């Protein structure tokens, strides 16, 4: 009975008693949810177009952020190095397409998945060789991103909003809108959707698969760059960042592997659910449950909808 009260009622009493703290937790969850969604977006872009679960998205985020910091440290103006970084991501996209995807075309999914894990190892080694392993600070101010925070009075308390968090949310929303527009209105976007639908049919109407793959990997690279800047501005730029890629996995399966809106909704559900769980239910079992709660949430959703919230219905035939 005591336990039931602690699990089922007490957390909600706490929420009602300190609404300002509750809002703060919600906001924190929202912001990390937005960032999870950004990483998940990179996964979804590549999965839609090539059916590859790109495990390397996490290290691409780190690699992009490190290149940006590294170039700035060499004395290149921050905005110029941003442009150079976009160039680096393009080279990476072309390289991956040439060296990894093209020779492995038509292989089973798990082989391609393993190849992206190989790519992850390669990029970890390369990144540490070039930039060194120690954590670095993101060049937030030179990139004209806001810093500092403001307090908001609500419900007899106050809410602390980091400006960088607001910027992250705004940039993420703009990015999603832009990608949505790109996918639905432009010629290349239509080609991408055609490839996502059916590789062979797309080939037969004259869409170049190789070109499409370069474009999606490039797009995923840019998403990685933006994610890297945002995460880097919130904490440090280090190789520890790549573990957020593991957090993006439950997000994408929750939303459905092929759905962009799914990535956003999944990100928010996981981000907010995880923070609420950690703050209000975590102390009951000794804390630290953030490391696995996301997976349990995703698992609970999957048991009800095995294809994710927005995924296409899986129809199996013999």
């Amino acid at each position: 009975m005591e336990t039931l009260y602690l699990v089922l009622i007490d957390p909600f009493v706490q929420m009602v008693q300190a609404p300002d703290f509750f809002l703060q937790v919600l906001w924190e969850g929202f912001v990390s949810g937005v960032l999870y969604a950004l990483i998940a977006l990179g996964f979804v872009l590549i999965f839609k177009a090539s059916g590859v679960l790109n495990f390397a998205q996490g290290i691409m985020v780190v690699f992009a952020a490190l290149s940006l910091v590294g170039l700035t440290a060499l004395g290149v103006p921050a905005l110029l190095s941003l442009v150079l970084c976009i160039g680096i991501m393009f080279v990476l996209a072309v390289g991956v397409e040439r060296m990894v995807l093209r020779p492995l075309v038509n292989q089973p999914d798990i082989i391609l998945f393993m190849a992206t894990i190989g790519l992850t190892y390669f990029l970890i080694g390369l990144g540490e060789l070039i930039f060194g392993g120690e954590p670095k600070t993101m060049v937030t101010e030179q990139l004209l991103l806001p810093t500092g925070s403001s307090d908001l009075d609500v419900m007899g308390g106050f809410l602390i909003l980091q400006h960088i968090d607001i910027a992250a949310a705004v940039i993420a929303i703009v990015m999603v809108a832009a990608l949505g527009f790109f996918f639905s209105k432009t010629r290349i976007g239509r080609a991408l959707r055609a490839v996502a639908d059916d590789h062979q049919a797309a080939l037969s109407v004259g869409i170049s698969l190789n070109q499409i793959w370069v474009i999606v990997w490039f797009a995923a690279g840019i998403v990685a760059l933006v994610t890297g800047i945002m995460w880097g501005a919130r904490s440090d730029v280090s190789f520890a960042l790549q573990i957020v890629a593991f957090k993006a996995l439950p997000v994408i399966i929750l939303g459905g592997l092929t759905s962009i809106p799914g990535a956003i909704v999944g990100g928010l559900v996981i981000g907010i659910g995880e923070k609420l769980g950690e703050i209000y239910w975590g102390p009951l079992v000794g804390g630290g449950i953030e490391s696995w709660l996301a997976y349990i949430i995703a698992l609970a959703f999957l048991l009800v909808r095995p294809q994710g919230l927005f995924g296409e219905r899986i129809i199996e035939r013999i």
Partner: protein
Amino acid sequence: MFYREAGQYKTSYAADMAVFPIRQDRIGIAVILAVAFVGIPLFASDFLLTSIMIPFLIFALATIGLNILTGYCGQLSLGTGAFMGVGAYACYKLTSYFPDTNILVWIVASGFFSAAVGVVFGLPSLRIKGFYLAVATLAAQFFLEWAFIRIPWLYNANASGAIEVASRTGFGITLTGPAAGALPRYFAVLAIVVVMTWIASNLLRGRIGRSFMMIRDMDIAAELIGVRPLHTKLLAFAVSSFYCGVAGAMMVFFWLGAAEPSAFSINLSFQILFMVILGGLGSLIGCFMGAAFIWILPVVIRMVPEVLGLSVEAATVEHVNFVIVGALIIAILIVEPHGLARMWQILKQKLRVWPFPY
């Protein structure tokens, strides 16, 4: 010419169903076992035994475990590291309650605990498939890792939070702990690995293994012709986790001597998955090849600068190591996506027809 089975007639069903029906294979396996049981103990240094052979055999056993699940039953799992951890912690608890029992008994018994945990985390596989299932097994990985840190009972509330192996004996010989020599540990590991590989090979070519493969190839069709998915998938999870658990227990007791929860992290899961994929999905000999490749290659790369007389920082070598291993994984996948086991088959075919092209 070298590998020709022409003229080897089988006159009984037993001969037809032998594990190694071809004479050359029997000779080959006898040579390998002779080298492993006699040659290596006679001539190997302690370094070779403790840093190469023991971990290689342990990883090979874990790889067999994952291969049963992923290669034979088609259920992708990323929780191998955690299942190995369950085995290690189970063995640690058992041996601290019953210190006088033969340690080998507890090593094998710990596999049952791992199997039970594996069945629980295998339940979602009844409803979820493919990558969705892979992420579901990540739940097992992170939850169990958290449990290893947060439940003091598991590590006897040590101040260090790590499990440390005390001296334990089996058949009157000290097998674990700081006092144990490399040779007894090597023999213990080798014996367990050989016996369990033999059991696995018989399990997989019998009714159980065939039902695994039916589920892998098309689960709905398998269900229609009478294979029960619930039983089969959970059995695959149980057998796979049993192997992983025994491997995990051996890893701590015969190799590392002490382990923190981070020893069973997601990186271990990936390492084992690499061994499975590079060795070849659905091949037992591939498990050994994959384990040898992934484990021994970095050791060799680490020794290269010393041999060449270059003074390179250890950290740099480690980074170059990552780059080379990553690149080689991609290269092998491109050259032969079915892994080293397929390369070995191709080589055998070449030997069979040599000196003719076909």
